[in-house]
Each structure stands twice: as structure tokens, then as C-alpha cells.
């Protein structure tokens, strides 16, 4: 039996179905601490579902998912919250709470999950907003932010609790090349001290960020390796996804 205790994240024979559709089938891979792995694949191959399974927003029909030594598929209540707190999640459309200002979006997890005083919370939020370049926008509502600003705000909220593991869903979707590159830069800064799992279609960004790439095809893991290695993979889809235009 494999020992998953030394890994930050490990998927062990994970399968997921929606009704009659098998989205993921027998997926096994692990991510080492402070490693960045990018998941590539055509639309509808289960990339975003993989991220949601890792943070237990969905449960798999089969298999186990180990987060820092805990099987998150078996956890509920307080135990699940404890493990989830090790992770931050940047959603595809940022998923900012539209009834709260940017400041309150970031303050909510700090108020709920830490014992920080109000000045300490202010300090953390100012630091994180400065980090993502949104210092002057803290009182704005999400609908007043542009697409790129929303992504940066979503990243700020994901980072505010200083997670060990960062899950990122399509960081460059809907953004122009320059703005996407700015988001990549922010993620690169996190790379040294955070384990990252990034779902992306942007090969350019993937090649800058990824230590390894996992390619999903028809719900199965078609390839796993360094981007340069996968350029010569026998599977045409894998080569097509990893090669830059």
C-alpha cells in the first residue's frame, strides 16, 4: 500500500460520476510539498471537478484523497474544516461575494476562522491587497471590478489565510495576454512557499508555472510529467495540449 503521508496532496484511484456520465475514472497522482502541478485537458474532461474533489466540495464515488496525511473523503464537520483551512481556492470566475465589498470579502474568513483583532485583520488585508495590486480598491463592490481585478481579488481572498496548498481554476480564462501574464506573475511569487494545483488551458502560463503537468483525457490520467518530457509523448492529444503554438 502506498504511503501518502509525505505528500501535500494525493489522489488514490479516484472516480466520480454525474448520473450516467463517468467524469473521472481511477485517477491516481500525488503532489509534493511546494510543488506546482498543472492539470491540462480538453473541456469537460473533469479538471475543475478534480479541484472540487480535492477541497471536498464534492465526494468521489470511489478512491481516497489525502491532504497532508488526512483522507478528506472521510471527514465531516470540524475535522473537514480543519483540513480545508490548509487550502485556498481561486475559482474560475473569482466567485467574490457580491453582497460584500472587496475589504469585507477578505475580512470574512479572517473574522470567522482566526482570533485576530480588528487592527491585525486590517494589516493582513492591506498587505494582501498590496501584494495583488488592489490597495486602492478595498471599498469597491465586486461588480465595480474588471475581469482581471476580480481574478486578483479572488487570489487575495484565497491567500488571506496563508494556505499551504493553493488550488487555482483557470487563472487566465477571459483575460487578455498581458493581464493573464500579471496573474501568472502573482502565482509565481507564491510558488516558493505554496503547493499549487492549477487547472489551465493557457500553455504559455503552464510552462512558466508548472513543475509537472497532468493531462486528463476522457476522465483518465493520460500523462504525467515535466512539460518538456510530454512534448514527445506518444499520445497526440497530450502533445497537442503541451506544445506552444
Amino acid at each position, binding site marked *: 500500500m502506498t504511503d501518502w503521508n509525505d505528500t501535500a496532496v494525493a489522489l488514490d484511484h479516484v472516480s466520480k460520476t454525474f*448520473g450516467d456520465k463517468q467524469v473521472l475514472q481511477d485517477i491516481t497522482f500525488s503532489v509534493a510539498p511546494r510543488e506546482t502541478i498543472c492539470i491540462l485537458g480538453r473541456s469537460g474532461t473533469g479538471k475543475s471537478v478534480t479541484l472540487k474533489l480535492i*477541497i471536498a*466540495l464534492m465526494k468521489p464515488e470511489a478512491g481516497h484523497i489525502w491532504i497532508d496525511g488526512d483522507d478528506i473523503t472521510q471527514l465531516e464537520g470540524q475535522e473537514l474544516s480543519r483540513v480545508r483551512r490548509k487550502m485556498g481556492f481561486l475559482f474560475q*470566475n473569482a*466567485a467574490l*461575494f457580491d453582497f460584500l465589498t472587496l475589504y469585507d470579502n477578505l475580512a*470574512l474568513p479572517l473574522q470567522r476562522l482566526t482570533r485576530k483583532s480588528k487592527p491585525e485583520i486590517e494589516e493582513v488585508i492591506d498587505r494582501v491587497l498590496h501584494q495583488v495590486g488592489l490597495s486602492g480598491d478595498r471599498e469597491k463592490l465586486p461588480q465595480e471590478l474588471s475581469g482581471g481585478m476580480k481574478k486578483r481579488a479572488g487570489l487575495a481572498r484565497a491567500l488571506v489565510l496563508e494556505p499551504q496548498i493553493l488550488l487555482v481554476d483557470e487563472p487566465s480564462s477571459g483575460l487578455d495576454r498581458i493581464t493573464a501574464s500579471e496573474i501568472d506573475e502573482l502565482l509565481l511569487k507564491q510558488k516558493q512557499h505554496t503547493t499549487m494545483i492549477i487547472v489551465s488551458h493557457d500553455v504559455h502560463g503552464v510552462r512558466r508555472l508548472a513543475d509537472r503537468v497532468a493531462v486528463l483525457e476522457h476522465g483518465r490520467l493520460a500523462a504525467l510529467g515535466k512539460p518538456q518530457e510530454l512534448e514527445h509523448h506518444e499520445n497526440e492529444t497530450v502533445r497537442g495540449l503541451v506544445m506552444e503554438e
Partner: protein
Amino acid sequence: MPEKKAPGLTKGLEATGKAASFTLRVIRDAFRAPFELAYVWLELTDQGWRSLPLIISSGLALGLVMTLHTRTELIKFGAGAWIPEIQCLSFFVEIGPLVAALLVAGRVGAGMGASLAEMRATEQIDAIEALSIDSFKLLIVPRVVACFLALPLLTTFMDFCGVTSGFLSEHFLSHISLQLYVARAFRGVEWSNFIPPTLKTAVFGFIIGTVSCFFGYTTNEGAEGVRKAATNSVVMSSLLVILADVILVKLIFVLYPESAL
């Protein structure tokens, strides 16, 4: 193993079970810390304060129409002096509570269902869960509690507006003084004609809040889900409010026999 498609009856039972379990969770979580008072206040402002113009205008219009209708018939029988009392009793006992509840089901119920469905579609609810925050406690409980508290207050406003516009109508038609109108209006009114019917609207509020939140929170169909949640919230909560009214009126008659007209 892939799930098999459930037949109609099984699906119906499954939906009923889910709704029952949702309702029980609302009740259990309402008594469990943290109590989210700031969010309850926010919702109370939104549901209560912003519904007030609709409640006031409807109460005034209904009071006026009601007086105009009853006066023609009562005058024929020489019972014009009964107009204030009939106006007062009908508003306190039935019109105020039921109309206020149906108006709130339309305005607040649709809004709650749609906003929660929108939050589901845009992954905001997933984002709350991903932050290790209980989304049910944060989003559902304050909405239901606010609806539970707001409806008796809104009903009181509707009663007041109905009686006030009844007086204004009578004053212009028969030049009755305020003092005489009030004396006649409250001549046969007991506390049991006002308090139990007003308090029963707290149950209506609970129904509207829970049903609307159920449709909004449990949908997962994007924009179509938002539309369905808004429609189902209004239709189902209005229907359940009317059914609950029948049961609660009977219960009030059993507990307060003197309130039966």
C-alpha cells in the same frame, strides 16, 4: 456504479425528504451559535424596510376598496354604524395577515430564491464552503429568521393602513369623526382578534423563508435554475401559506374560542 433514473413517485418522495431535512436543519441551526445577528439585521432591513412601501400602499388601497364595497350593502340594511367594526375585524383577523404574507412571498420570496440560485450558479456558495465557513448558517438561517420576525411587523402596518384608509373613506363619505370611528371600530374587537392572527404570520414568514431558500440553495442549473428558483419560491410558498392559514385559523379557534366571529 452509475445512478439509475428514479421514477416520478420516488423523485417526489426524495424531494419531500430533502425539503423536510432542510427545514429541520433550519430549526436546529437557528438555535446554534454563532447567531449571525449582523446578517439577520441586514436581512431584516432588506425584507422588512424595503417591503414597507408595498405593504403600506396595498393596505391603504385595500382598506379603501373594502369600505366602498361593504358600505353600499350595509347602508341598505341600515347597518352603516357597523362599517368601522367590520373593517377593523376583517383586517385584523384575515385580510392583513394573509395579504401581507402573499405580498412578502411575491417580493421577498422571489428575491431570496433568485439571489441564492445566482450565488450557487456563480460558485459563491462553493467559495464560502471552500473557506471552511458553513454556508447554510451564513446564508439560510439569517434569511429565514428575518422573514419570521419581519412578517408580524409588516402585518401590523398593513392592519393600521387598512383601518386608516377605511376611516378616511368614511370621513369623506359620511363625515364621521375620528373619535367616533375609533370607538365603533374597536367596540367588538378583543385582543384575541388581533394577537393570534398577527403572530400566526410568523409561521407564514418561516414558510416563505424556508421554501424560498430551499429552492434557491438546492438548485444547480445556472441561469435556468435562477428562473425556476424564483418562480417555484413564489408559487410554493404562496400555496403553503394559504394551506397553513386554514390549519392555523382552526387552531386559533380551538385555543381562543372567543375569537370566532
